[in-house]
């Protein structure tokens, strides 16, 4: 549902009833999009809206927030047993911004545990189902944020993207999702998985809504030392772009059929050519080594002492930490922490971690070169249609599904996933990658494309 449709609803029967109706839909839903539903607080806010007390760009609009974003007084679990009892005492920067603009936080969205997964199946609270086929996954790791938009269980949502975690579920659920340029949105209050790769980003049912949410959350924050200190403002533009199709990115036959059709449509207005980025052959391995290494360091904080899951009896520290972490973390999180420890350990640092960082330099170089001759770059967001639940049981097979999305995070450039129709009744997403801080170009291109698909 778009903001415009929501406003019409609110106009005709009030925010309180509109929110009540949405809460009822969430309660009956089979999707499992939420870990926590903020029923009472959302209704209170709706009443305030109806009394004319809520003001701002997002006044009275229900927003779902991924459960790795800290919300003061609201349970924030990262979909992990480790944080199943954790209630933050402060708000993330993006939450302060939402509140300042009058948004209604309707609930905390389900996700892969600590963001580690491509299907939302690693959640301690169970998988999110795909709104188009309940036997399939919604994508991950921001699966709840995407499914909620697709099923009218929220109007807007926040996700986070470390290696595709906004774009993958946006593609699988047929909604819009944007991974902003690294540094555009403050990470203050985002519970970290891999700091040098991840960004919070918007998800919505239209480009205009996506742009509005980005305007609200982007900007300066001194509490994130990697914040770029830049604002974002959506300025409509209509110009012919130089569009590059990345030769090294692709997908299976069904996805490529749709992709080729979309490229034909784009050629009607824009200049399209193929570009080659040879370093992408190594991007997936480099990404996982860096992400796992950062994870092993970040997740060292979970010791069962200051917050989170704890054992009844305090033992010696070695035994206590090892047991708390054995019980509190799921298998995928354990795998990533252990492999990260391995990649950083004596004798392997140069072979894996340092080598991965060098590949990252090569990937950045290839992107810079491509952007010398192109304004935007294209690929399918995901190489296949949404998977069946349980289909990606083998970890390496799951990692390989991220092949088109992870290079973007290695380089820190922005990327958008745009829904471009269906194959076998399942949504297909187009990934549009831009140069650093070119969100305005991406969103305008996305808007033009959306217009073309709505016409057809």
């Amino acid at each position, binding site marked *: 549902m778009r903001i415009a449709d929501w406003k019409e609803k609110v106009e005709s029967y009030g925010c309180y009833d509109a929110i009540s109706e949405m809460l009822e839909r969430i309660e009956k839903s089979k999707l499992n999009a939420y870990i926590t539903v903020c029923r009472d607080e959302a209704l209170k806010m709706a009443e305030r809206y109806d009394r004319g007390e809520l003001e701002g760009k997002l006044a009275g609009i229900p927003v779902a927030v991924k459960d790795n974003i800290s919300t003061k007084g609201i349970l924030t679990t990262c979909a992990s047993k480790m944080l199943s*009892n*954790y*209630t933050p*005492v*402060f708000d993330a920067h993006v939450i302060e911004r939402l509140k300042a603009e009058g948004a209604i936080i309707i609930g905390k969205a389900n996700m892969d545990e600590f963001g580690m997964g491509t299907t939302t199946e690693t959640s301690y609270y169970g998988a999110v189902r795909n709104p188009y086929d309940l036997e399939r996954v919604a994508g991950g790791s921001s699966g709840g944020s995407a499914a909620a938009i697709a099923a009218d269980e929220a109007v807007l949502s926040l996700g986070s993207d470390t290696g595709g975690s906004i774009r993958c579920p946006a593609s699988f659920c047929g909604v819009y999702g944007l991974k902003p340029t*690294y*540094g555009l949105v403050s990470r203050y209050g985002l519970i970290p998985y891999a700091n*040098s790769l991840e960004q919070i980003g918007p998800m919505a049912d239209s480009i205009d809504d996506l742009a509005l949410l980005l305007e609200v959350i982007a900007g300066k924050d*001194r509490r994130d*030392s*990697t914040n*770029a200190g830049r604002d974002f403002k959506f300025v409509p533009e209509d110009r012919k772009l130089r569009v590059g199709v990345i030769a090294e990115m692709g997908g299976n036959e069904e996805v490529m059929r749709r992709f080729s059709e979309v490229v034909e449509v784009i050629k009607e207005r824009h200049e399209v050519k193929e570009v080659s980025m040879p370093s992408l*052959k*190594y991007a997936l*391995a*480099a990404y*996982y*080594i860096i992400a796992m290494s950062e994870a092993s360091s970040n997740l*060292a904080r979970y*010791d069962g*002492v*200051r*917050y*989170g899951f*704890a054992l009844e009896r*305090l*033992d*010696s*520290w*070695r*035994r206590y*930490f*090892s*047991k708390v*972490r*054995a019980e509190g*973390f799921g298998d995928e999180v*354990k*795998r990533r*922490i*252990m*492999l*990260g*420890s*391995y990649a950083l*350990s004596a004798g392997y640092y140069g*072979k*894996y971690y*340092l080598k*991965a*960082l*060098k*590949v990252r*330099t*090569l990937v950045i170089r290839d992107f810079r070169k491509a952007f010398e001759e192109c304004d935007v770059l294209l690929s399918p967001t995901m190489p296949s249609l949404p998977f069946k639940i349980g289909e990606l049981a*083998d*970890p*390496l097979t799951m*990692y390989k599904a991220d092949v088109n999305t992870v290079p973007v995070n290695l380089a*820190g450039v922005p990327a958008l996933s745009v829904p471009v129709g269906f194959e076998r009744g399942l949504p297909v997403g187009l990934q549009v990658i831009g140069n650093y801080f070119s969100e305005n170009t991406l969103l305008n291109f996305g808007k033009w494309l959306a217009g073309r698909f709505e016409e057809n």
Partner: protein
Amino acid sequence: MVSIRDVYHTAELAKIEITEEQAEKFRKEFEKIIDYFNILDEVEEDVEPTFHVLPITNVFRDDVEGECLSQEEALSNATHKEEGYFRGPRVVE
């Protein structure tokens, strides 16, 4: 090749207790994953590593007292606490 010893050693580094059954499962999975990671051996070009994508410098604040969490707030998520302190496991074994 990843040995069972490697898996136990890594689990010890990561401070995660694992069972025998888990160790064997992880060993097989790690072997496949690390084998895939070895594709990086093909990369011969030597360039500077990139730790951060943006040219950023440290952000400093003035050295003045600011707002911070109260003791009560800081302790609110801890299971084991005593007289306003966190209670942790024994450090000296």
